[in-house]
């Protein structure tokens, strides 16, 4: 299996049989810089690092992703998003390797982006790099926007504890974190796995949580929400291993 930054991933306690590949392609290349800008980015580039580089280059449109803990490859695979922006809005093309080692490039609509999904979440292709379409901007504005998002994130998300980001997907017509909160589950824990006291949509590792504890907590949260609201909530994180 392929991983990036491991930031949306729960690996079970007995680990993974076989080979795990961590893609570390870290190239950032500005290929066009006019009113419209194009940037080619290796799959292993961390979103925060790219955001800093784009700030320096005065290229706007990527601010929404600056605080998402992950790589470009991972972000495209799951159409990561925050604060009203999604990867879908800025990806022009993606080059990938298929199961047989052949390399292809797909463009915009061919990514089949949906909420937290893309063609890559349904296949075992490996993302190599993508070209992003962005705009020329002002350093001051970009910086201000990024700082505002960082502040919001810090206030609302448990960034001081290990987690895999938002544990559950947004619901169809409901906000999952709100339902979990209304079940009184903030702070509820099994061992060191805990529903964040700050944001009910996050499960955090208080210290030495095991995957088993986290999975038990996930099941408990799902069951409790179902009993109270009769809706099934879905995982955003990916569970792998044995």
């Amino acid at each position, binding site marked *: 299996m392929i991983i990036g930054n491991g930031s949306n991933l729960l690996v079970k306690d007995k680990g993974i049989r076989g080979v795990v590949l*961590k893609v570390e392609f870290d190239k950032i290349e500005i290929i066009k810089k006019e009113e419209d800008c194009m940037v080619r980015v290796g799959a292993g580039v961390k979103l925060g690092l790219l955001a800093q580089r784009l700030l320096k280059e005065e290229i706007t449109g990527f601010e929404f992703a600056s605080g998402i803990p992950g790589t470009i490859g991972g972000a495209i695979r799951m159409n990561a998003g925050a604060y009203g922006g999604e990867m879908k809005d800025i990806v022009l093309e993606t080059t990938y390797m298929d199961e047989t080692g052949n390399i292809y490039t797909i463009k915009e609509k061919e990514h089949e982006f949906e909420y937290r999904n893309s063609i890559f979440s349904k296949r075992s292709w490996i993302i190599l790099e993508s070209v992003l379409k962005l705009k020329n901007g002002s350093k001051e504005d970009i910086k201000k926007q990024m700082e505002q998002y960082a502040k919001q994130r810090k206030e609302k998300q448990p960034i001081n504890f290990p987690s895999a980001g938002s544990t559950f997907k947004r619901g169809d017509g409901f906000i999952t974190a709100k339902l979990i909160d209304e079940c009184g589950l903030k702070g509820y824990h099994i061992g060191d796995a805990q529903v964040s006291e700050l944001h009910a949509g996050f499960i955090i590792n208080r210290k030495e949580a095991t995957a088993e504890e986290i999975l038990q907590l996930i099941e408990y949260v799902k069951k409790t929400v179902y009993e109270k609201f009769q809706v099934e909530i879905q995982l955003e994180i990916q569970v792998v291993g044995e």
Partner: protein
Amino acid sequence: MEKEKINYLYQQLREVVDSNNIFINEPMKKHTSFKVGGEADIFIKIQAQEELKRSFTSYK
């Protein structure tokens, strides 16, 4: 995976990837933001497309 198979794969992968970037029984808690997870039989850091292609096809 059986130990022999892991060793065999390791030898094969060493032909295509720098051995400093191949790890056996690597704890996945080191590589996940959750800081959770057991060991991967083999864990490889891939830094070039050619490495990816060759390692990908060699263990399949």
